C-alpha cells in the first residue's frame, strides 16, 4: 500500500523537479491505488459472477420469501418450519438482541460490583475481585461458553429428576423452567399506569430540580418517584381485579410440562458472556474511579460536603465521564461475542444465517445481511457515544 507524505505544508513547492513535489506525488500514489483497487474489484466481481453462474445460484434477495424448512429451538416470535427465510433471520436478530440485552444488564451489575470491590479497603474483597478479573480476562469466551454448556448444564439431573427451587422453578439439563405469567383482561391498564407513572416521575423530577435551583429547597424526589412507579401500577392492577394467573411447570414422568423453559443454549451463552464481559467492565470501573483525582474528594470535604454526598455529587459524575465510552465499547463487544452462539446451537443471527447459507448457498446475500445488521449496531452505538461525549465534555474557559 502506498502511503505518501503526510503533514506536508500546504505550499511547499520544492525547488527541484516535479517528481519531488509532495502534492504531485500524493496524487500519483492515490491514482495508483485507485487503479489497483479497480482492477482487483473487477477481477473479483468477474470471478464471482462466473462462479455463481456455474453453481446455478440466482443472486438477489428473493430467497428471503421462500419456505425455511428448519425449526428454531427458541424463539420469542412465532416461527414454524413453514415460515420464510426472512422471518428466520428476524427470529435470529431478536434472539441476538435478547441475549445481548440480558447479558449487558448482568455484566454491568457484576462488573460494577467487582470493580468497586477491587478498590475496597477490605483486603479479602479486593483480592477476590482481583482473582475474578485475572481469571476471566485471560481465557477465551468460547471456552467459558463450553464450560457452562458441556461442563455444568449438561451434567445437571434429567428433566424427570429436576431440581425444584422455590417459586416453582425447576432446573434440569433441559434448562430452567419457571412459571409463565398469563395476563387476563384489564392487564393492559397496568402497563398504561406504569407508563403514566414514569412520565409523571420525569416531570416531577424536572420540577423539583427547577425549584431547587430557584429556591434552594429540596423535594423528596426519590420517595415520590418510587411511590409513583410502584404504587400507581399496583393500584391499577388491584382495581382491575388482579388479572394475572401463572402457568406452572409440572414435573411429569419424562419431561416437564407447562411454564416457560429457557434452554441450556441460551443459559450458557448468557452466563458466559455476562461473566466474561464483567471482568472487563470491572477494570473500566476501577480505572474510572481512580481517574478522579484525590484533590476532588479533599476539596469536597473542605467545602463541608458529607462523604455520601461527595460520592454522589463529585466522584460519580466525574468517574462516569471516564467510564461510559469504554463501557459502551464493551457492550458492543458483548453483542458481537453473542455470535459465538453458533458454537452451542443457540439460534442467533449468525447461527440462523449459517443454516440458510448452507441450505441455499446464497453466501453473498447472507453475509451482506450480517454486515448490515452488525454495522448498524456499531454505528448506532458510536452515534450515541458522540452525542454523550458532546453532552458530557468538560466546558473549559
Amino acid at each position, binding site marked *: *500500500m502506498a*502511503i*505518501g507524505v*503526510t*503533514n*506536508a*505544508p500546504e505550499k511547499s513547492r520544492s525547488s527541484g523537479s516535479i517528481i519531488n513535489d509532495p502534492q504531485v506525488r500524493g496524487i500519483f*500514489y*492515490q491514482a495508483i*491505488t*485507485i487503479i489497483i*483497487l479497480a482492477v482487483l474489484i473487477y477481477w*473479483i466481481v468477474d*470471478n*464471482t459472477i*462466473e*462462479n*455463481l453462474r*456455474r453453481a446455478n445460484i440466482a443472486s438477489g434477495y428473493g430467497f428471503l420469501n421462500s419456505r425455511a424448512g428448519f425449526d428454531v429451538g427458541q424463539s420469542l416470535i412465532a416461527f414454524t418450519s413453514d415460515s420464510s427465510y426472512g422471518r428466520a433471520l428476524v427470529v435470529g436478530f431478536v434472539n441476538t438482541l435478547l441475549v445481548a440485552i440480558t447479558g449487558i444488564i448482568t455484566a454491568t451489575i457484576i462488573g460494577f460490583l467487582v470493580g468497586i470491590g477491587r478498590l*475496597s*479497603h*477490605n*483486603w*479479602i*474483597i479486593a483480592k*477476590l475481585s482481583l482473582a475474578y478479573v*485475572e*481469571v476471566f480476562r*485471560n*481465557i*477465551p*469466551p*468460547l*471456552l467459558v461458553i*463450553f*464450560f457452562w454448556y*458441556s*461442563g*455444568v448444564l*449438561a*451434567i445437571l439431573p434429567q428433566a424427570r429428576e429436576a431440581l425444584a427451587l422455590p417459586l416453582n422453578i425447576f432446573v434440569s439439563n433441559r434448562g430452567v423452567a419457571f412459571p409463565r405469567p398469563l395476563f387476563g383482561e384489564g392487564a393492559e391498564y397496568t402497563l398504561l399506569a406504569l407508563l403514566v407513572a414514569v412520565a409523571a416521575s420525569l416531570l416531577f423530577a424536572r420540577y423539583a430540580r427547577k425549584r431547587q435551583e430557584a429556591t434552594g429547597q429540596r423535594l423528596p424526589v426519590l420517595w415520590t418517584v418510587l411511590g409513583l412507579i410502584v404504587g400507581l401500577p399496583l393500584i391499577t392492577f388491584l382495581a382491575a381485579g388482579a388479572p394475572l394467573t401463572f402457568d406452572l411447570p409440572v414435573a411429569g414422568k419424562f419431561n416437564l410440562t407447562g411454564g416457560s423453559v429457557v434452554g441450556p443454549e441460551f443459559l450458557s451463552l448468557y452466563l458466559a458472556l455476562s461473566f466474561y464481559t464483567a471482568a472487563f467492565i470491572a477494570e473500566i470501573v476501577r480505572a474510572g474511579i481512580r481517574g478522579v483525582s484525590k484533590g476532588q474528594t479533599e476539596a469536597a470535604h473542605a467545602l463541608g460536603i458529607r462523604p455520601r454526598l461527595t460520592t454522589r455529587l463529585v466522584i460519580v459524575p466525574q468517574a462516569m465521564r471516564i467510564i461510559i465510552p469504554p463501557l459502551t465499547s464493551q457492550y458492543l463487544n458483548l453483542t*458481537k*461475542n453473542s*455470535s*459465538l452462539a*453458533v*458454537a452451542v446451537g443457540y439460534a442467533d443471527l*449468525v447461527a440462523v444465517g*449459517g443454516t440458510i*447459507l448452507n441450505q441455499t448457498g446464497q*453466501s*453473498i446475500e447472507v*453475509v451482506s445481511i*450480517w*454486515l448490515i445488521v*452488525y*454495522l448498524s*449496531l*456499531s*454505528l448506532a452505538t458510536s452515534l450515541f457515544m458522540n452525542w454523550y461525549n458532546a453532552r458530557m465534555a468538560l466546558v473549559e474557559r
Partner: protein
Amino acid sequence: MTTHEASFVRASMVEASPAPVLESGIVFWLRKNLFATPKDTALTIISLLVLAWLVPPAIQWLFIDAAWTGGGRGVCATVEQGGSQPEGWSGACWAFVNAKFSQFLFGRYPMDERWRPALVGILFVLLLVPMLMPKVPYKGLNAVLLLVALPIVATILLPGGWFGLTYVETPLWGGLLVTLVLSFVGIAVSLPLGILLALGRRSDMPVIKMLCTVFIEIVRGIPLITVLFMASVMLPLFLPQGVTFDKFLRALIGVSLFASAYMAEVVRGGLQAIPKGQYEGADSLGLSFWQKMNLIILPQALKLVIPGIVNTFIGLFKDTSLVSIIGMFDLLGIVRLNFSDTNWASAVTPVSGLIFAGFVFWLFCFGMSRYSGFMERVLDRSQR
C-alpha cells in the same frame, strides 16, 4: 571548653519505644484491612464463609478425589456408570488429559513426524526467551532469527513435502500447535499491517485515508466469526475456478486481518499522542516520510501504547479458539473433539478437559499481560 550543664539538654539518646500494639504487627493489619468498620467486618465474614464453602470442595474435586492415572473411562466413572469409582464419586479426570496430552499438543499430526513441530517449538522457545530478556545482547540478530529464519524453518518442517520429509496436510494439524501458529502469524502480520493502516488513516491523501478508515471500521464493527465465515465461504467465490486456498491459510488470513484493524486503532492512539513538534522537527531536519516515521515518531508512539498492543495480542490469542467453529482443531477444538471418544466419555471428562484447556490459555494470556507490565516499567525507567 564549656560543658553543657543545663539540665534540659540531653546527653544521651532516648531508646526508641516500640510502636503501640494497635499500630503495627498482625493485629493492626487485621484491624486495618479486614475489620475496620462493622460493614467491613460483615463483608470479611461473608467472604470467608463463601470461601470456606467453595475452596475445600474445589480442592477436593481438583486434586484429592481426582483420577490421575488410568487407561480408560473406568477410572473416571462410578460403578453405576460402568466404572470403578465408588457410588457418589466426583472428581477431576486428569487421566483423560494425561492420555490425550500429546494429541492436545499436536492434534492428529502423524506420530512418527511429531518431532518436527516439537523441534519448531523448542527453537521458538530458545529464540523467544532471550528476545524477551532486556539484558541479553544481540537483539537485532535475535529478531531476524525469530521473525525471518524461524518462519522459514517452520514452513519447511511443519507441512513437509521438501527434503524427503513426508507431507502433512493442514487438516491433520491441531491442538496447541494450531493455536500457537495462528497466534504467532497473526501477531507477526497484524503489527506491521496495523501500523500501515494507522498511518494510512492519518494520511493527508483522501483516497488512502478513506480506504483505511472504511476497512478498519467495517472489520471492527463485525464479529470475528463472520469474518471467518466470509473467509471460508466467500473467498472461494472470489477466486477463479480451480484455484483453492488451504482452509488453514484462509483462517490465518481472516484472523490476521481482523487483528490488524484493532491494532491500527491502538497505534493511531499512540500517533495522536505524539506532540506536533516532533513531526515538525523531523520535517525541518529534511527527513523523508519513512525516515521521519521510523526514526522519530513510531519509536515514541509504539512505546506509549505497549499495553494496548499486548491487549490486542491477548485478544488475538483468545480469538484463535474461534477457528474450532469453522471445523479446525485448535487446542479448544481438539479437547472438545475428544469428549466424543467413547473410550473416555464420562460425566466429568468435559469439565476436566475444559479446565485443562482454560488453564493453558490462561497461562499464556496471563504471562503476556505480566510481561507487558514488566516492559512498561523497564521502559519507564529508561525514560527518566
